[in-house]
């Protein structure tokens, strides 16, 4: 009887203490899992899943496991706002990742900023996102940092003197890609023979390409997503245009080789991640992803994977008190200093300035890898060692 009570008390005590350490860290994920943007959101989610299963499998963070609370924001801005609010106020997550599209981020990130919760984008590359406030982070390198490097290297190696430009003018991603190309072309003093546009969902680019061909450029700058970029390349080859193409971030996807079969050579692309990058962390990521998903990863999965590890590194230094507001603030304070070497290479943060000139959110600092497609592969042309890869100061 006495023994029984002692044992019972001991069991309760053990249970209590072990339940404390078994409390999970809730992390929210708001990505586009249905709708048009799902082709980016789904690989992003898979990248997170892989990272979390690896981290939890090796004991978690200071003994605590990560619990992902995943919501579908459908690629729509109102949905992104709703989902953010649910994750922050109802699920009470520690921080959240997402959303998928820059458009949605512009609408939903202010919600996180106002609620003082870290929001970490892995695929938002447009302007005006990290300037929202100091709780906004992203590890997706913007075109402003990559494009000048790509252009410089491509110009050097192809000897081009003038280019034509083709871009999608109704999508925030391709449009801001174009803005960055324009700035970089002016900085490098490369004249533009003609500028043509297309819209999302277009299937026929021959009028624009014909005009481009007759303006006699040495190369064609293409700011597009694969859905339009691949047919554009195919049709240009069909029209007899054999010039090199210089693409923005959207063209960095192995899907190109399938969609533009036999017509995918001679495309220059810059990106922080390359499937050909032989670095050890990258190779490990690629094979782990292949085993888990039975498919090759793309840059979206890679960036999501690394983003989770960045957060984990910061969390390791934070003592979680269990009081939500305190913990959320502690995470925000610890995150800017996080540095890792992941699948996308060496990474660290750089603070951006807000609209009012005061310091705001955090952008990615990573080296760009410039590649050219050849024989169904992205062949690395240059792996720049310097970190601030020729970026121009942004307002």
């Amino acid at each position, binding site marked *: 009887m006495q023994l029984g009570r002692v044992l019972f008390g001991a069991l309760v005590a053990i249970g209590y203490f072990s339940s404390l350490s078994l409390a999970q860290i809730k992390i929210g994920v708001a990505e586009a*899992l*249905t*709708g048009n943007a799902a082709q980016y959101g789904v690989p992003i989610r898979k990248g997170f899943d892989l990272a979390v299963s690896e981290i939890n499998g090796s004991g978690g963070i200071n003994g605590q496991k990560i619990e992902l609370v995943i*919501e*579908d924001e*459908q690629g729509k*801005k*109102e*949905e992104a*706002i*709703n989902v953010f*609010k*649910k994750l*922050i*106020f*109802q699920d009470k997550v520690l921080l959240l990742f997402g959303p998928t599209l820059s*458009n949605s981020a*512009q*609408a939903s990130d*202010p919600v996180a900023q106002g*609620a003082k919760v870290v929001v970490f984008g892995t695929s938002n590359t*447009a*302007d*005006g996102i990290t300037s*929202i406030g100091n709780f906004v982070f992203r590890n997706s390198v913007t075109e402003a940092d990559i494009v000048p490097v790509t252009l410089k290297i491509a110009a050097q190696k192809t000897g081009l003197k003038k280019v034509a430009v083709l871009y999608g*003018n*109704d*999508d*925030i991603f*391709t*449009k*801001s890609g174009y803005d960055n190309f324009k700035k970089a072309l002016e900085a490098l003093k490369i004249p533009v023979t003609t500028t043509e546009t297309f819209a999302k969902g277009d299937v026929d680019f021959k009028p624009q390409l014909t005009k481009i061909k007759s303006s006699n450029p040495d190369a064609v700058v293409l700011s597009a997503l694969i859905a339009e970029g691949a047919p554009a390349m195919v049709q240009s080859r069909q029209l007899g245009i054999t010039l090199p193409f210089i693409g923005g971030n959207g063209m960095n996807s192995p899907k190109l080789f399938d969609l533009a079969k036999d017509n995918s050579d001679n495309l220059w692309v810059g990106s922080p991640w390359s499937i050909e990058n032989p670095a050890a962390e990258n190779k490990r990521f690629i094979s782990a992803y292949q085993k888990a998903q039975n498919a090759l990863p793309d840059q979206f999965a890679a960036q999501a994977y690394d983003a989770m590890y960045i957060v984990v590194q910061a969390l390791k230094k934070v003592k979680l008190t269990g009081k939500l507001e305190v913990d959320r603030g502690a995470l925000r304070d610890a995150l800017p200093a996080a540095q890792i070497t992941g699948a996308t290479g060496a990474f660290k943060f750089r603070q951006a300035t807000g*609209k009012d000139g005061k310091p705001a959110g955090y952008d990615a600092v990573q080296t760009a890898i410039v590649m050219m497609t050849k024989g169904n592969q992205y062949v690395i042309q240059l792996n720049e060692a310097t970190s601030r890869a020729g970026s121009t100061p942004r307002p």
Partner: protein
Amino acid sequence: MEWLETFWATYSTLVLSIGTNVLLALSIYLTLVCGLLTVANAAFMGIGAYTAALLSLHSGLPFYLSLMLGALLPAAVALLLGPPTLRLSGVYLAMATLAFGEIVRIFLLNSESLTGGALGLNGIPQHTQWFDVVVIVIAALYVLLRFSGSRIGRTMVAICQDEVATELMGLNVRAYKLFAFALGAGLAGLAGGLNAHFTFFISPNEYGFDRGVEILAMGVLGGTGSPWGAVIGGALITLLPELLRGLGNYRPLINGVILIVIILYSPKGIWDLTRFVRGKRAAAAN
């Protein structure tokens, strides 16, 4: 009450969206009653949103004034657009308004220096409060309910049934149609201004064909028998994705199926279903 605070923090955007969607459905209600099939209300919403947002961002005008101007500009455009287009009927009117909508969208996309083009306008101050939406919706509903019962409302129904006969009776059909069109445009512009001020960010692609069709669906689904139909339609279309959230990847599928089922079993809209209740009450009152 903590429960209320959490609820509001999580669902405030949803509630405000219901309000603006109801306004949009009401904006198209009047034109539907007149038999006018217009898809232009999405474009009017866009004009209103951009006007109000630009005024908020760049001029010092108070919120309510920006909102008013955001409602007046689309109404003015509608008054200009109306006379030539309202001569068309049926699907032709729908297509003309669709073309107009696309032209507006392209204009918004290409006037980068004014509207930011594809990059949109962001950082719009959060001025919309719940009472703004509630007051405006109730006001609009009240006005439209009064119309329905009044001579104006009955004239509009008559126009819908047989335009020629109505004209022969000496009523200025064109004026009524124009009135409905312009009032609808104003309401849509108001909804746009309100929406812009609680979503931080707007871009031209939100006011295109998809939105136009969605507004039409709200109107038809709710039913054109009464402004209450618009309320039902607007609320339903807004709530459906939220209610179906648990279904994950099947959400859009169920959304589409529900739309089909509702139309199949109540082609005149959901409001029509309540006529059984209303009919019985009227019979009992006699």
